[in-house]
């Protein structure tokens, strides 16, 4: 049994529309206690939505979410509140991250006030200061408004807000995307230290493959709301054509290697055209696509060694 389980989750944002489009389509995933599961995929493929579904911040269209074996998918707002302390999300960086009328201190105090009711103000403040330091900011930031922070500072306050409760499970949504490399390493280290000390479990959403490589025990690859491949590590015998394309698109950090790396994507007019409704969601961009791909959607199939892949051509 995993700490968090998603069972056949579907989420559509346009529920009233005749032709529903799904942000998350039939995802079944288990996140084991103490592991870091990486989630990579195209922007807009539903990674953040999936994270929000796990935390019940969005209601699924169908499917179930289990936390420690209990089905939380039909819990209402009040029933969720005691659980929220243990499951947190670091939101993707944006200027809407914080209430514009709040200063950093109020932002960080909010979760503390909700759950550490018995503590004195001094103790609460100590928590705030401690977490602020661990994300590399000093006390002078306490009186700043959210809109007075740089992108990276904002992201770090977001991290602090989620971690201040010492949750058991954290969804990290693009947590290192807007900080420099030295700070990135520092944040990753912080996450790993916390994991070591408190046995945290993470869902690590990122498109920074080297960060994923560094911290994740397993990686799930998502495309158009579906899981395409689950593998122990990003370059361990990759099978799926989309995962290969992702890896190929990684940029070399050596400026001398600038020759155009070959793209494993079909860049044709076709790939710009409408998204396929039937068959494999990746068919229009896939180099290996066959006739069968246009008719049947491939199912996620276990091919041993903790490795599962959804593809008609390479699933063996």
């Amino acid at each position, binding site marked *: 049994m995993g700490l968090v389980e998603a069972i056949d989750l579907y989420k559509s944002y346009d529920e009233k529309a005749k032709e529903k489009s799904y942000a998350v389509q039939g995802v079944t995933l288990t996140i084991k206690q103490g592991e870091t599961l990486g989630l990579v995929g195209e922007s807009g493929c539903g990674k953040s939505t999936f994270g*929000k579904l796990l*935390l019940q*911040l969005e209601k699924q269209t169908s499917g179930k979410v289990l936390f420690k074996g209990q089905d939380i998918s039909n819990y209402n*707002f*009040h029933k969720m*509140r005691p659980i*929220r*302390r243990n499951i*947190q*999300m670091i*939101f993707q960086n*944006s*200027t*809407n*991250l*914080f*209430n*514009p*009328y709040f*200063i950093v201190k109020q932002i960080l105090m*909010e*979760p503390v006030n*909700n*759950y550490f009711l018995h503590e004195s103000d001094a103790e609460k403040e100590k928590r705030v200061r401690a977490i602020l330091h661990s994300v590399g900011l000093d006390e002078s930031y306490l*009186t700043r*408004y959210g*809109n*007075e922070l740089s992108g990276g500072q904002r992201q770090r306050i977001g991290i602090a*807000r*989620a971690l201040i*409760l010492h949750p058991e499970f954290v969804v990290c949504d693009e947590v290192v995307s807007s900080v420099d490399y030295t700070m990135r390493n520092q944040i990753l280290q912080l996450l790993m230290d916390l994991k070591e000390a408190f046995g945290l479990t993470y869902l690590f959403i990122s498109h920074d493959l080297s960060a994923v490589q560094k911290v994740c025990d397993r990686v799930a690859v998502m495309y158009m709301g579906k899981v395409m491949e689950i593998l122990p590590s990003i370059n361990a015998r990759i099978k799926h054509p989309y995962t290969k394309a992702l890896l190929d698109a990684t940029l070399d950090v050596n400026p001398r290697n600038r020759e155009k790396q070959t793209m494993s994507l079909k860049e044709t007019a076709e790939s710009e055209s409408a998204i396929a409704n039937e068959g494999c969601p990746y068919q229009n961009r896939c180099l290996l696509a066959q006739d069968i791909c246009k008719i049947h959607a491939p199912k996620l199939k276990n091919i041993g060694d903790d490795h599962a892949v959804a593809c008609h051509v390479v699933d063996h």
Partner: protein
Amino acid sequence: MKEHTDTNLLKRTFSRLKNDKLALTGGIIVLLFILAGAFATYIAPHDPTAVNIENRLLPSSWEYPLGTDQLGRDVLSRIIYGTQVTLRNAFLVLAGILIIGVPMGMIAGYTGGRIDNFIMRVADIVLTFPSGILALAVVGMMGPGMLNIMLVLVSLWWAPFARVIRGAVLKIKEKDFVMAAEAAGTSKFQIIVKHILLNAASPIIVLATLNVASIIMHIAGFSFIGLGTQPPAADWGVMLNDSREFIATDPALMLWPGLAIMIVIFGLNMLGEGLNEALSPHTQKGIQRIKPWSVQRKVSTLKEDTYE
């Protein structure tokens, strides 16, 4: 330069208002009227209802700064007491509108779905009623009187208020920080108050300020045609009505209440504009309003699409 980042919202708003000359003027005007109304008993030189036929239609003098009316009553005192009556009634109406309109708008916007549909349909229907006709009908049934007029205004004007608030709430609800507050375990009540209402406060306050102006106009208007405040009690509308007969011989009688109405409304409008600026969390130049292709300081001229 320093003011806008004060951590206290009230302080910040005040210090921004202080730097905005127009808003400050508006604020002072409104404040003076409110004070005059509140302390009418202390500052009015005469009894506003004391009839003295011998002194009728006197020009202004030391004793009667604005002269006297057709029954010899002191016009200044009547204006001051009129302020009291008019402003009290206007604020009562506003309070009624807020008490109905704000929760309706909040509930409609926050819960959405069927409740939202229901509230908004009711609001739509209410919005189609012309206030004049309804007022006539009510007065026809229950007799003239300010209370009836006020009830009519409240029962109609909560609707546009609810609409605006619903729109603001819909917009705020989508923002990440509302979801983040839920994730942080904040209670529904606190989310609504601290996150949604606080961010919707500026449109509410601005709208309320501007609304008071039109309430005053309507109250005066209904009194003017004799459906509102009944003599001998006097508000500005009644005074205007009384002075009609003397418009040729004593135009000043009409001038004073008219001027009072104009100045108050002018002040309220200036204050409303200023509050709009001062309450916004970001300053005019704030990044929030910038477009990538053309960095303008003005808010977009585009009309916002309505959600459906």
